[in-house]
Protein backbone atom coordinates (compact mmCIF):
# COMPACT_ATOMS: atom_id res chain seq x y z
CA UNK A 1 0.00 0.00 0.00
CA UNK A 2 2.83 2.33 0.87
CA UNK A 3 4.31 1.57 -2.54
CA UNK A 4 1.14 2.59 -4.35
CA UNK A 5 1.03 5.76 -2.32
CA UNK A 6 4.60 6.55 -3.35
CA UNK A 7 3.87 5.94 -7.02
CA UNK A 8 0.84 8.22 -6.90
CA UNK A 9 2.84 10.81 -4.98
CA UNK A 10 5.61 10.61 -7.57
CA UNK A 11 3.15 11.31 -10.40
CA UNK A 12 1.92 14.39 -8.57
CA UNK A 13 5.46 15.30 -7.70
CA UNK A 14 6.31 15.64 -11.37
CA UNK A 15 3.77 18.40 -11.93
CA UNK A 16 5.63 21.72 -11.69
CA UNK A 17 5.14 23.74 -8.57
CA UNK A 18 3.58 26.78 -10.19
CA UNK A 19 0.66 24.66 -11.41
CA UNK A 20 -0.30 23.95 -7.80
CA UNK A 21 0.10 27.56 -6.80
CA UNK A 22 -2.10 28.81 -9.64
CA UNK A 23 -4.69 26.08 -8.99
CA UNK A 24 -4.86 26.92 -5.29
CA UNK A 25 -5.20 30.63 -6.04
CA UNK A 26 -7.94 30.10 -8.61
CA UNK A 27 -9.78 27.84 -6.20
CA UNK A 28 -9.50 30.41 -3.43
CA UNK A 29 -10.69 33.25 -5.68
CA UNK A 30 -13.68 31.28 -6.99
CA UNK A 31 -14.68 29.97 -3.54
CA UNK A 32 -16.59 33.07 -2.29
CA UNK A 33 -18.26 33.44 -5.70
CA UNK A 34 -19.97 30.10 -5.14
CA UNK A 35 -21.70 31.57 -2.13
CA UNK A 36 -22.72 34.72 -3.97
CA UNK A 37 -24.12 32.65 -6.81
CA UNK A 38 -26.19 30.74 -4.27
CA UNK A 39 -24.41 27.46 -4.85
CA UNK A 40 -23.06 27.21 -1.32
CA UNK A 41 -24.33 27.97 2.17
CA UNK A 42 -22.82 31.02 3.89
CA UNK A 43 -21.73 28.61 6.61
CA UNK A 44 -18.96 27.29 4.36
CA UNK A 45 -17.77 30.74 3.43
CA UNK A 46 -17.55 31.61 7.12
CA UNK A 47 -15.58 28.43 7.67
CA UNK A 48 -13.29 29.34 4.77
CA UNK A 49 -12.64 32.76 6.26
CA UNK A 50 -11.81 31.29 9.65
CA UNK A 51 -9.54 28.77 7.90
CA UNK A 52 -7.59 31.59 6.27
CA UNK A 53 -6.97 33.11 9.71
CA UNK A 54 -5.59 29.74 10.78
CA UNK A 55 -3.51 29.58 7.59
CA UNK A 56 -1.85 32.87 8.55
CA UNK A 57 -1.21 31.57 12.07
CA UNK A 58 0.14 28.23 10.87
CA UNK A 59 2.45 29.85 8.33
CA UNK A 60 3.69 32.21 11.04
CA UNK A 61 4.25 29.53 13.66
CA UNK A 62 6.00 27.39 11.07
CA UNK A 63 8.82 29.94 11.12
CA UNK A 64 9.50 29.25 14.78
CA UNK A 65 8.47 25.63 15.09
CA UNK A 66 9.39 24.29 11.67
CA UNK A 67 12.27 26.37 10.36
CA UNK A 68 14.05 27.17 13.59
CA UNK A 69 12.91 24.16 15.60
CA UNK A 70 11.62 25.96 18.71
CA UNK A 71 8.52 24.52 20.35
CA UNK A 72 6.53 27.65 21.13
CA UNK A 73 3.26 26.92 22.92
CA UNK A 74 2.11 30.47 23.62
CA UNK A 75 1.62 31.59 20.05
CA UNK A 76 -1.99 32.61 20.63
CA UNK A 77 -0.75 35.43 22.90
CA UNK A 78 0.47 37.41 19.87
CA UNK A 79 -2.78 36.73 18.08
CA UNK A 80 -4.55 38.16 21.14
CA UNK A 81 -2.32 41.24 21.20
CA UNK A 82 -3.18 41.95 17.56
CA UNK A 83 -6.88 41.37 18.11
CA UNK A 84 -7.09 43.47 21.27
CA UNK A 85 -5.10 46.35 19.76
CA UNK A 86 -7.63 46.46 16.97
CA UNK A 87 -10.64 46.12 19.24
CA UNK A 88 -9.47 48.91 21.53
CA UNK A 89 -8.48 51.29 18.74
CA UNK A 90 -11.55 50.77 16.60
CA UNK A 91 -14.64 50.33 18.75
CA UNK A 92 -17.06 52.31 20.93
CA UNK A 93 -15.36 50.79 24.00
CA UNK A 94 -13.04 53.79 24.47
CA UNK A 95 -14.62 55.73 21.66
CA UNK A 96 -11.56 55.49 19.41
CA UNK A 97 -11.91 54.92 15.68
CA UNK A 98 -8.57 54.93 13.93
CA UNK A 99 -7.83 54.21 10.33
CA UNK A 100 -7.55 50.58 9.23
CA UNK A 101 -4.00 50.90 7.89
CA UNK A 102 -2.73 52.58 11.05
CA UNK A 103 -4.29 49.88 13.18
CA UNK A 104 -2.92 47.03 11.06
CA UNK A 105 0.57 48.46 11.46
CA UNK A 106 0.13 49.08 15.19
CA UNK A 107 -1.28 45.58 15.77
CA UNK A 108 1.60 43.97 13.86
CA UNK A 109 4.30 46.07 15.48
CA UNK A 110 2.87 45.68 18.98
CA UNK A 111 2.74 41.91 18.55
CA UNK A 112 6.35 41.97 17.34
CA UNK A 113 7.40 44.05 20.33
CA UNK A 114 5.56 41.69 22.60
CA UNK A 115 7.31 38.77 20.90
CA UNK A 116 10.64 40.49 21.53
CA UNK A 117 9.86 41.10 25.20
CA UNK A 118 8.75 37.51 25.77
CA UNK A 119 11.63 36.22 23.67
CA UNK A 120 14.29 38.00 25.76
CA UNK A 121 14.02 35.72 28.79
CA UNK A 122 12.62 32.60 27.12
CA UNK A 123 14.96 32.11 24.16
CA UNK A 124 17.79 31.23 26.53
CA UNK A 125 15.87 28.04 27.22
CA UNK A 126 15.73 24.97 25.04
CA UNK A 127 13.32 22.22 24.15
CA UNK A 128 10.77 21.32 26.82
CA UNK A 129 11.70 24.26 29.04
CA UNK A 130 10.99 26.70 26.25
CA UNK A 131 7.65 24.99 25.61
CA UNK A 132 6.55 25.27 29.24
CA UNK A 133 7.64 28.88 29.67
CA UNK A 134 6.00 30.06 26.45
CA UNK A 135 2.84 28.20 27.44
CA UNK A 136 2.85 30.11 30.71
CA UNK A 137 3.34 33.44 28.94
CA UNK A 138 0.42 32.64 26.68
CA UNK A 139 -1.81 32.09 29.68
CA UNK A 140 -0.52 35.21 31.44
CA UNK A 141 -1.45 37.25 28.39
CA UNK A 142 -4.99 35.89 28.27
CA UNK A 143 -5.47 36.43 32.00
CA UNK A 144 -4.23 39.97 31.68
CA UNK A 145 -6.86 40.72 29.05
CA UNK A 146 -9.39 38.92 31.21
CA UNK A 147 -8.71 41.07 34.25
CA UNK A 148 -7.78 44.45 32.81
CA UNK A 149 -11.42 45.49 32.96
CA UNK A 150 -10.93 49.25 32.57
CA UNK A 151 -9.60 48.75 29.05
CA UNK A 152 -10.66 45.32 27.82
CA UNK A 153 -13.98 44.99 29.66
CA UNK A 154 -12.70 41.68 31.08
CA UNK A 155 -14.64 38.51 30.31
CA UNK A 156 -17.42 40.59 28.79
CA UNK A 157 -15.21 41.30 25.81
CA UNK A 158 -15.28 44.20 23.38
CA UNK A 159 -18.32 44.36 21.09
CA UNK A 160 -19.11 46.53 18.10
CA UNK A 161 -15.71 46.69 16.43
CA UNK A 162 -16.05 49.05 13.46
CA UNK A 163 -15.60 47.47 10.04
CA UNK A 164 -12.35 48.35 8.28
CA UNK A 165 -12.32 51.01 5.64
CA UNK A 166 -9.71 50.53 2.91
CA UNK A 167 -9.60 53.76 0.94
CA UNK A 168 -13.38 53.95 0.92
CA UNK A 169 -14.06 50.23 0.50
CA UNK A 170 -15.89 49.16 3.64
CA UNK A 171 -15.18 45.53 4.33
CA UNK A 172 -18.11 43.98 6.13
CA UNK A 173 -19.28 40.89 4.22
CA UNK A 174 -17.73 37.45 4.74
CA UNK A 175 -16.70 37.32 1.07
CA UNK A 176 -14.89 40.64 1.37
CA UNK A 177 -13.08 39.47 4.49
CA UNK A 178 -12.18 36.31 2.67
CA UNK A 179 -10.45 38.31 -0.06
CA UNK A 180 -8.77 40.61 2.45
CA UNK A 181 -7.36 37.59 4.25
CA UNK A 182 -6.40 35.92 1.00
CA UNK A 183 -4.39 38.99 0.03
CA UNK A 184 -2.64 38.93 3.42
CA UNK A 185 -1.86 35.24 3.07
CA UNK A 186 -0.39 35.73 -0.41
CA UNK A 187 1.75 38.64 0.77
CA UNK A 188 2.99 36.84 3.89
CA UNK A 189 3.72 33.60 2.05
CA UNK A 190 5.64 35.44 -0.65
CA UNK A 191 7.80 37.27 1.91
CA UNK A 192 8.46 34.15 3.94
CA UNK A 193 9.26 32.06 0.92
CA UNK A 194 11.84 34.65 -0.11
CA UNK A 195 13.30 34.59 3.40
CA UNK A 196 13.51 30.83 3.32
CA UNK A 197 15.65 31.04 0.22
CA UNK A 198 18.20 33.44 1.68
CA UNK A 199 20.98 33.57 4.23
CA UNK A 200 18.38 34.11 6.95
CA UNK A 201 16.48 30.94 6.07
CA UNK A 202 19.71 28.98 5.92
CA UNK A 203 20.74 30.29 9.31
CA UNK A 204 17.41 29.15 10.81
CA UNK A 205 17.81 25.68 9.37
CA UNK A 206 21.44 25.44 10.43
CA UNK A 207 20.45 26.38 13.95
CA UNK A 208 17.83 23.67 13.99
CA UNK A 209 20.29 21.10 12.67
CA UNK A 210 23.18 21.82 15.02
CA UNK A 211 23.28 24.87 17.26
CA UNK A 212 26.96 24.56 18.20
CA UNK A 213 28.17 24.10 14.64
CA UNK A 214 26.04 26.99 13.42
CA UNK A 215 27.40 29.23 16.16
CA UNK A 216 30.92 28.29 15.08
CA UNK A 217 29.97 29.18 11.51
CA UNK A 218 29.15 32.76 12.40
CA UNK A 219 25.43 32.37 13.05
CA UNK A 220 24.49 34.07 16.31
CA UNK A 221 21.86 31.80 17.82
CA UNK A 222 20.05 34.30 20.03
CA UNK A 223 19.80 36.91 17.29
CA UNK A 224 18.60 34.45 14.70
CA UNK A 225 16.05 32.84 17.02
CA UNK A 226 14.80 36.26 18.07
CA UNK A 227 14.31 37.24 14.45
CA UNK A 228 12.15 34.14 13.84
CA UNK A 229 10.11 34.77 16.98
CA UNK A 230 9.59 38.48 16.26
CA UNK A 231 8.56 37.91 12.64
CA UNK A 232 6.17 35.13 13.51
CA UNK A 233 4.68 37.25 16.30
CA UNK A 234 4.07 39.99 13.77
CA UNK A 235 2.20 37.59 11.50
CA UNK A 236 0.05 36.45 14.43
CA UNK A 237 -0.63 40.12 15.26
CA UNK A 238 -1.75 40.78 11.71
CA UNK A 239 -3.99 37.71 11.78
CA UNK A 240 -5.42 38.84 15.12
CA UNK A 241 -6.23 42.31 13.78
CA UNK A 242 -8.15 41.00 10.77
CA UNK A 243 -9.83 38.40 12.96
CA UNK A 244 -11.08 41.07 15.35
CA UNK A 245 -12.47 43.13 12.46
CA UNK A 246 -14.18 40.06 11.06
CA UNK A 247 -15.73 38.90 14.34
CA UNK A 248 -16.72 42.45 15.34
CA UNK A 249 -16.54 41.13 18.88
CA UNK A 250 -13.74 39.56 20.88
CA UNK A 251 -13.38 38.26 24.41
CA UNK A 252 -10.65 36.28 26.17
CA UNK A 253 -12.19 32.89 25.37
CA UNK A 254 -11.04 33.26 21.78
CA UNK A 255 -7.46 33.06 22.99
CA UNK A 256 -7.37 29.89 25.04
CA UNK A 257 -4.30 27.68 25.20
CA UNK A 258 -6.17 25.26 22.98
CA UNK A 259 -5.75 27.65 20.06
CA UNK A 260 -1.97 27.50 20.37
CA UNK A 261 -2.18 23.72 20.39
CA UNK A 262 -4.38 23.67 17.32
CA UNK A 263 -1.91 25.79 15.38
CA UNK A 264 0.96 23.55 16.47
CA UNK A 265 -1.05 20.56 15.24
CA UNK A 266 -1.60 22.27 11.89
CA UNK A 267 2.12 22.86 11.41
CA UNK A 268 2.97 19.30 12.43
CA UNK A 269 0.22 17.82 10.28
CA UNK A 270 1.28 19.77 7.22
CA UNK A 271 4.96 19.07 7.63
CA UNK A 272 7.34 21.11 9.75
CA UNK A 273 9.34 23.71 7.91
CA UNK A 274 7.15 23.54 4.83
CA UNK A 275 5.04 26.57 3.86
CA UNK A 276 2.65 24.63 1.58
CA UNK A 277 2.45 22.07 4.37
CA UNK A 278 1.38 24.66 6.93
CA UNK A 279 -1.33 25.91 4.55
CA UNK A 280 -2.65 22.40 3.84
CA UNK A 281 -2.43 21.49 7.54
CA UNK A 282 -4.55 24.50 8.48
CA UNK A 283 -7.14 23.81 5.80
CA UNK A 284 -7.43 20.11 6.62
CA UNK A 285 -7.56 20.49 10.39
CA UNK A 286 -10.01 23.38 10.33
CA UNK A 287 -12.31 21.92 7.68
CA UNK A 288 -12.37 18.22 8.62
CA UNK A 289 -14.31 18.56 11.91
CA UNK A 290 -16.82 20.83 10.24
CA UNK A 291 -17.32 18.44 7.36
CA UNK A 292 -17.80 15.56 9.77
CA UNK A 293 -20.33 17.57 11.73
CA UNK A 294 -22.27 18.44 8.59
CA UNK A 295 -22.10 14.83 7.46
CA UNK A 296 -23.62 13.50 10.66
CA UNK A 297 -26.15 16.26 11.33
CA UNK A 298 -27.25 17.08 7.78
CA UNK A 299 -26.12 14.96 4.87
CA UNK A 300 -26.41 11.47 6.31
CA UNK A 301 -29.77 12.10 8.08
CA UNK A 302 -31.08 13.63 4.85
CA UNK A 303 -30.00 10.63 2.88
CA UNK A 304 -30.82 7.86 5.35
CA UNK A 305 -33.71 9.32 7.32
CA UNK A 306 -33.61 11.46 10.45
CA UNK A 307 -33.53 8.53 12.86
CA UNK A 308 -30.07 7.64 11.57
CA UNK A 309 -27.83 7.30 14.63
CA UNK A 310 -29.99 9.61 16.77
CA UNK A 311 -27.52 9.76 19.67
CA UNK A 312 -24.60 10.85 17.51
CA UNK A 313 -26.66 13.48 15.78
CA UNK A 314 -27.77 15.22 18.97
CA UNK A 315 -24.35 14.84 20.54
CA UNK A 316 -22.70 16.58 17.60
CA UNK A 317 -25.33 19.29 17.56
CA UNK A 318 -25.08 20.19 21.21
CA UNK A 319 -21.53 19.32 22.20
CA UNK A 320 -19.56 19.74 19.05
CA UNK A 321 -16.54 21.50 20.50
CA UNK A 322 -15.66 18.52 22.63
CA UNK A 323 -15.90 16.14 19.70
CA UNK A 324 -13.90 18.51 17.59
CA UNK A 325 -10.93 17.93 19.88
CA UNK A 326 -11.52 14.20 19.64
CA UNK A 327 -11.33 14.37 15.86
CA UNK A 328 -8.19 16.49 16.10
CA UNK A 329 -6.55 13.93 18.33
CA UNK A 330 -7.51 11.10 16.02
CA UNK A 331 -6.14 12.87 12.95
CA UNK A 332 -2.83 13.60 14.69
CA UNK A 333 -2.43 10.04 16.01
CA UNK A 334 -3.12 8.56 12.59
CA UNK A 335 -0.67 10.90 11.00
CA UNK A 336 2.13 10.25 13.47
CA UNK A 337 1.74 6.53 12.75
CA UNK A 338 1.41 6.64 8.98
CA UNK A 339 3.09 9.81 7.84
CA UNK A 340 5.26 11.35 10.57
CA UNK A 341 6.85 13.84 8.19
CA UNK A 342 3.50 15.55 7.55
CA UNK A 343 1.24 15.85 4.53
CA UNK A 344 3.46 18.06 2.39
CA UNK A 345 6.87 17.80 4.00
CA UNK A 346 9.80 20.01 3.36
CA UNK A 347 12.70 18.11 1.83
CA UNK A 348 14.73 18.64 4.98
CA UNK A 349 12.25 17.13 7.37
CA UNK A 350 11.39 14.13 5.31
CA UNK A 351 15.00 13.08 5.64
CA UNK A 352 15.13 13.74 9.33
CA UNK A 353 12.09 11.63 10.15
CA UNK A 354 12.81 8.63 7.93
CA UNK A 355 16.48 7.94 8.01
CA UNK A 356 16.14 5.44 5.22
CA UNK A 357 13.52 6.67 2.84
CA UNK A 358 13.37 4.33 -0.17
CA UNK A 359 13.01 7.44 -2.26
CA UNK A 360 16.55 8.32 -1.33
CA UNK A 361 17.81 5.36 -3.31
CA UNK A 362 19.76 7.68 -5.50
CA UNK A 363 21.69 8.90 -2.48
CA UNK A 364 22.38 5.34 -1.43
CA UNK A 365 23.74 4.56 -4.87
CA UNK A 366 25.89 7.63 -4.64
CA UNK A 367 27.05 6.42 -1.26
CA UNK A 368 28.18 3.12 -2.73
CA UNK A 369 29.93 5.00 -5.46
CA UNK A 370 31.84 6.97 -2.86
CA UNK A 371 32.82 3.79 -1.16
CA UNK A 372 34.16 2.26 -4.36
CA UNK A 373 36.03 5.43 -5.01
CA UNK A 374 37.75 4.99 -1.65
CA UNK A 375 38.61 1.40 -2.49
CA UNK A 376 40.17 2.44 -5.77
CA UNK A 377 42.28 4.96 -3.90
CA UNK A 378 43.62 2.16 -1.76
CA UNK A 379 45.03 0.33 -4.71
CA UNK A 380 47.03 3.33 -5.84
Amino acid at each position, binding site marked *: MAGTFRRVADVFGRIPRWVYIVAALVLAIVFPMLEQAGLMQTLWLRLGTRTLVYVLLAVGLNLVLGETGLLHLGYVAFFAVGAYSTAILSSPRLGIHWNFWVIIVIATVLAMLFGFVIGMPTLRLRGDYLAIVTLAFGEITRMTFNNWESVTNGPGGIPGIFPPNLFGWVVDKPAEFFYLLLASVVLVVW*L*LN*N*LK*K*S*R*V*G*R*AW*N*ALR*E*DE*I*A*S*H*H*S*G*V*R*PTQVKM*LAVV*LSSGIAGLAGAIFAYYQQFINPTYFLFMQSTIVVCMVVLGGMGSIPGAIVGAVVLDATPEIIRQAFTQWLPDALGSDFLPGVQTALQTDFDRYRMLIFGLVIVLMVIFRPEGLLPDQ*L*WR*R*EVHDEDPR*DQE*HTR*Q*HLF*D*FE*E*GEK*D*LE*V
Partner: protein
Amino acid sequence: MAEVVLDVRSITKTFGGLKAVNDLSFVVREGEIVSLIGPNGSGKTTTFNLITGLYEPDSGDVLLKDESIAGLKPGQIYERGISRTFQMLRLFSNMSILDNVLVGMHGRTRANVIDCMLHTPRMRREEAESVARAKEILGLFPGRFPASRHSQPALSLSYANRRRLEIARALAGEPALLLLDEPVAGMNPAESLEVMRQIRDLRDMGYTILMIEHDMNVIMGASDRVIAMDHGEKIAEGAPQEVANDPAVVEAYLGKRGADTAS
Protein backbone atom coordinates in the same frame (compact mmCIF):
# COMPACT_ATOMS: atom_id res chain seq x y z
CA MET B 1 60.10 35.74 10.92
CA ALA B 2 56.49 35.58 9.75
CA GLU B 3 53.83 37.51 11.57
CA VAL B 4 52.21 35.92 14.62
CA VAL B 5 48.58 35.04 13.87
CA LEU B 6 47.57 33.36 17.11
CA ASP B 7 49.16 34.09 20.45
CA VAL B 8 47.99 31.94 23.34
CA ARG B 9 49.22 33.38 26.64
CA SER B 10 49.22 31.07 29.67
CA ILE B 11 45.58 30.03 29.48
CA THR B 12 44.11 27.86 32.20
CA LYS B 13 40.77 26.09 32.34
CA THR B 14 39.53 23.96 35.20
CA PHE B 15 36.44 21.77 35.36
CA GLY B 16 35.75 21.25 39.04
CA GLY B 17 39.04 19.97 40.44
CA LEU B 18 40.43 18.97 37.06
CA LYS B 19 42.92 21.25 35.38
CA ALA B 20 42.04 20.51 31.77
CA VAL B 21 44.43 23.14 30.44
CA ASN B 22 47.12 24.50 32.72
CA ASP B 23 49.19 27.60 31.98
CA LEU B 24 49.47 26.83 28.27
CA SER B 25 51.29 29.24 25.95
CA PHE B 26 52.20 28.98 22.30
CA VAL B 27 52.10 30.96 19.08
CA VAL B 28 51.10 30.14 15.52
CA ARG B 29 52.76 32.14 12.75
CA GLU B 30 51.32 33.07 9.41
CA GLY B 31 51.48 30.34 6.77
CA GLU B 32 52.53 27.46 8.99
CA ILE B 33 50.92 24.19 9.96
CA VAL B 34 51.17 23.52 13.68
CA SER B 35 50.06 20.18 15.11
CA LEU B 36 48.83 19.73 18.64
CA ILE B 37 49.48 16.20 19.87
CA GLY B 38 49.13 14.33 23.12
CA PRO B 39 47.40 11.31 24.65
CA ASN B 40 43.61 11.25 25.05
CA GLY B 41 42.49 13.62 27.77
CA SER B 42 45.58 15.79 27.56
CA GLY B 43 43.52 18.92 26.86
CA LYS B 44 43.87 19.37 23.10
CA THR B 45 40.19 19.73 22.27
CA THR B 46 39.68 21.88 25.37
CA THR B 47 42.40 24.16 24.00
CA PHE B 48 40.49 24.37 20.71
CA ASN B 49 37.29 25.15 22.56
CA LEU B 50 39.08 27.90 24.48
CA ILE B 51 40.43 29.44 21.30
CA THR B 52 37.08 29.31 19.46
CA GLY B 53 35.05 30.70 22.35
CA LEU B 54 33.02 27.65 23.30
CA TYR B 55 34.69 27.96 26.72
CA GLU B 56 36.09 31.04 28.36
CA PRO B 57 39.58 30.67 29.89
CA ASP B 58 39.75 31.02 33.69
CA SER B 59 42.93 33.00 33.29
CA GLY B 60 45.32 33.97 30.53
CA ASP B 61 44.60 35.54 27.18
CA VAL B 62 44.19 34.56 23.54
CA LEU B 63 45.27 37.06 20.89
CA LEU B 64 44.38 36.92 17.23
CA LYS B 65 46.64 39.29 15.31
CA ASP B 66 47.39 41.28 18.49
CA GLU B 67 43.72 41.59 19.44
CA SER B 68 42.37 39.80 22.49
CA ILE B 69 39.58 37.38 21.65
CA ALA B 70 39.26 35.66 25.03
CA GLY B 71 35.70 35.84 26.30
CA LEU B 72 34.14 36.52 22.91
CA LYS B 73 31.32 34.28 21.66
CA PRO B 74 32.04 31.64 18.99
CA GLY B 75 30.15 33.62 16.35
CA GLN B 76 32.23 36.75 17.00
CA ILE B 77 35.48 34.83 16.97
CA TYR B 78 34.45 33.25 13.67
CA GLU B 79 33.87 36.69 12.21
CA ARG B 80 37.30 37.83 13.37
CA GLY B 81 38.86 34.99 11.43
CA ILE B 82 39.06 31.66 13.24
CA SER B 83 37.18 28.74 11.69
CA ARG B 84 37.16 25.20 12.98
CA THR B 85 36.11 21.66 12.29
CA PHE B 86 34.98 19.20 14.93
CA GLN B 87 36.36 15.92 16.20
CA MET B 88 32.87 14.41 15.97
CA LEU B 89 31.52 15.64 12.65
CA ARG B 90 29.03 18.45 13.04
CA LEU B 91 27.58 19.06 9.63
CA PHE B 92 24.06 20.29 8.89
CA SER B 93 23.26 16.78 7.70
CA ASN B 94 19.86 17.45 6.18
CA MET B 95 20.90 20.58 4.33
CA SER B 96 22.42 20.44 0.90
CA ILE B 97 26.16 20.31 0.35
CA LEU B 98 26.13 23.78 -1.13
CA ASP B 99 23.99 25.17 1.69
CA ASN B 100 26.44 23.80 4.25
CA VAL B 101 29.18 25.93 2.72
CA LEU B 102 26.83 28.89 2.33
CA VAL B 103 26.00 28.78 6.06
CA GLY B 104 29.73 29.14 6.61
CA MET B 105 29.49 32.50 4.84
CA HIS B 106 26.72 33.78 7.08
CA GLY B 107 29.06 36.01 9.04
CA ARG B 108 30.60 37.38 5.85
CA THR B 109 27.35 38.32 4.12
CA ARG B 110 25.47 41.47 4.94
CA ALA B 111 21.99 41.29 3.36
CA ASN B 112 19.47 42.26 6.06
CA VAL B 113 16.02 40.83 6.71
CA ILE B 114 14.25 43.31 4.46
CA ASP B 115 16.66 42.54 1.60
CA CYS B 116 16.08 38.86 2.11
CA MET B 117 12.29 39.23 2.28
CA LEU B 118 12.10 41.21 -0.93
CA HIS B 119 15.06 39.59 -2.72
CA THR B 120 16.35 43.04 -3.59
CA PRO B 121 18.97 43.37 -6.35
CA ARG B 122 21.60 43.95 -3.64
CA MET B 123 20.67 40.69 -1.96
CA ARG B 124 20.60 38.78 -5.26
CA ARG B 125 24.03 40.08 -6.19
CA GLU B 126 25.45 39.07 -2.83
CA GLU B 127 23.75 35.68 -3.04
CA ALA B 128 25.17 35.05 -6.50
CA GLU B 129 28.64 35.99 -5.28
CA SER B 130 28.28 33.70 -2.26
CA VAL B 131 27.17 30.78 -4.41
CA ALA B 132 30.06 31.34 -6.81
CA ARG B 133 32.55 31.48 -3.95
CA ALA B 134 31.03 28.39 -2.31
CA LYS B 135 31.41 26.45 -5.57
CA GLU B 136 34.98 27.64 -5.82
CA ILE B 137 35.69 26.34 -2.30
CA LEU B 138 34.08 22.99 -3.07
CA GLY B 139 36.29 22.91 -6.16
CA LEU B 140 39.37 22.86 -3.91
CA PHE B 141 38.60 19.18 -3.39
CA PRO B 142 38.86 17.98 -6.97
CA GLY B 143 36.39 15.26 -7.92
CA ARG B 144 34.88 15.08 -4.45
CA PHE B 145 32.00 17.50 -4.86
CA PRO B 146 30.94 17.50 -8.53
CA ALA B 147 28.30 20.11 -9.41
CA SER B 148 25.69 17.37 -9.85
CA ARG B 149 25.86 16.65 -6.13
CA HIS B 150 25.73 20.20 -4.78
CA SER B 151 22.01 20.04 -4.07
CA GLN B 152 22.16 16.65 -2.36
CA PRO B 153 22.02 16.45 1.41
CA ALA B 154 25.28 16.34 3.31
CA LEU B 155 24.32 13.01 4.86
CA SER B 156 24.47 11.38 1.44
CA LEU B 157 28.23 11.85 1.44
CA SER B 158 30.74 9.20 2.40
CA TYR B 159 32.46 9.64 5.72
CA ALA B 160 35.69 10.97 4.26
CA ASN B 161 33.81 13.45 2.08
CA ARG B 162 31.83 14.67 5.07
CA ARG B 163 35.12 15.51 6.74
CA ARG B 164 36.17 17.35 3.60
CA LEU B 165 32.88 19.22 3.53
CA GLU B 166 33.46 20.34 7.10
CA ILE B 167 36.80 21.78 6.04
CA ALA B 168 35.09 23.48 3.09
CA ARG B 169 32.51 25.02 5.42
CA ALA B 170 35.29 26.30 7.67
CA LEU B 171 37.07 27.81 4.67
CA ALA B 172 33.90 29.69 3.71
CA GLY B 173 34.61 32.10 6.57
CA GLU B 174 37.87 33.17 4.86
CA PRO B 175 39.70 32.41 8.10
CA ALA B 176 43.02 33.90 9.16
CA LEU B 177 43.47 30.72 11.16
CA LEU B 178 41.97 27.32 10.47
CA LEU B 179 41.57 24.86 13.34
CA LEU B 180 41.21 21.22 12.34
CA ASP B 181 40.24 18.77 15.07
CA GLU B 182 41.48 15.34 13.93
CA PRO B 183 40.92 15.90 10.22
CA VAL B 184 41.76 12.31 9.24
CA ALA B 185 40.12 10.48 12.16
CA GLY B 186 38.49 7.32 10.90
CA MET B 187 39.93 7.54 7.41
CA ASN B 188 41.80 4.78 5.65
CA PRO B 189 45.51 5.32 4.85
CA ALA B 190 44.89 6.40 1.27
CA GLU B 191 42.25 8.90 2.30
CA SER B 192 44.48 10.24 5.08
CA LEU B 193 47.25 10.74 2.58
CA GLU B 194 44.97 12.70 0.27
CA VAL B 195 43.68 14.91 3.07
CA MET B 196 47.25 15.49 4.26
CA ARG B 197 48.20 16.69 0.80
CA GLN B 198 45.15 18.93 0.71
CA ILE B 199 46.07 20.44 4.07
CA ARG B 200 49.53 21.23 2.71
CA ASP B 201 47.93 22.70 -0.42
CA LEU B 202 45.82 24.94 1.79
CA ARG B 203 48.95 26.17 3.53
CA ASP B 204 50.57 26.85 0.18
CA MET B 205 47.50 28.90 -0.73
CA GLY B 206 48.24 31.05 2.30
CA TYR B 207 46.06 29.55 5.03
CA THR B 208 47.46 29.19 8.54
CA ILE B 209 46.52 25.92 10.18
CA LEU B 210 46.47 24.58 13.73
CA MET B 211 45.42 20.95 13.93
CA ILE B 212 44.93 18.20 16.45
CA GLU B 213 46.04 14.86 15.07
CA HIS B 214 46.90 11.36 16.17
CA ASP B 215 48.00 9.92 12.84
CA MET B 216 51.82 9.98 12.96
CA ASN B 217 52.14 9.90 9.16
CA VAL B 218 50.03 13.02 8.85
CA ILE B 219 51.83 14.77 11.71
CA MET B 220 55.24 14.00 10.28
CA GLY B 221 54.23 14.69 6.71
CA ALA B 222 52.28 17.88 7.12
CA SER B 223 53.32 19.87 10.15
CA ASP B 224 55.99 22.53 10.28
CA ARG B 225 55.94 22.48 14.04
CA VAL B 226 54.53 20.18 16.70
CA ILE B 227 53.34 21.01 20.21
CA ALA B 228 52.96 18.07 22.59
CA MET B 229 50.58 18.25 25.54
CA ASP B 230 50.01 16.06 28.56
CA HIS B 231 47.71 16.66 31.53
CA GLY B 232 46.85 20.09 30.17
CA GLU B 233 50.44 21.29 29.97
CA LYS B 234 52.85 21.75 27.13
CA ILE B 235 55.61 19.15 27.45
CA ALA B 236 57.49 19.69 24.20
CA GLU B 237 57.57 21.91 21.16
CA GLY B 238 59.63 21.92 17.98
CA ALA B 239 60.14 20.27 14.61
CA PRO B 240 58.14 17.03 14.16
CA GLN B 241 61.15 14.72 14.39
CA GLU B 242 62.50 16.46 17.48
CA VAL B 243 59.22 16.21 19.36
CA ALA B 244 58.68 12.58 18.37
CA ASN B 245 62.00 11.64 19.94
CA ASP B 246 61.59 13.81 23.02
CA PRO B 247 61.77 11.56 26.12
CA ALA B 248 58.95 13.48 27.83
CA VAL B 249 56.67 12.84 24.85
CA VAL B 250 57.52 9.17 24.66
CA GLU B 251 56.87 8.91 28.37
CA ALA B 252 53.51 10.62 28.06
CA TYR B 253 52.41 8.12 25.46
CA LEU B 254 54.07 4.93 26.66
CA GLY B 255 54.68 5.45 30.37
CA LYS B 256 57.91 5.53 32.36
CA ARG B 257 59.09 2.02 31.63
CA GLY B 258 58.25 2.39 27.96
CA ALA B 259 60.47 5.46 27.89
CA ASP B 260 63.31 3.51 29.47
CA THR B 261 63.04 0.71 26.96
CA ALA B 262 62.92 3.14 24.08
CA SER B 263 66.12 4.92 25.08
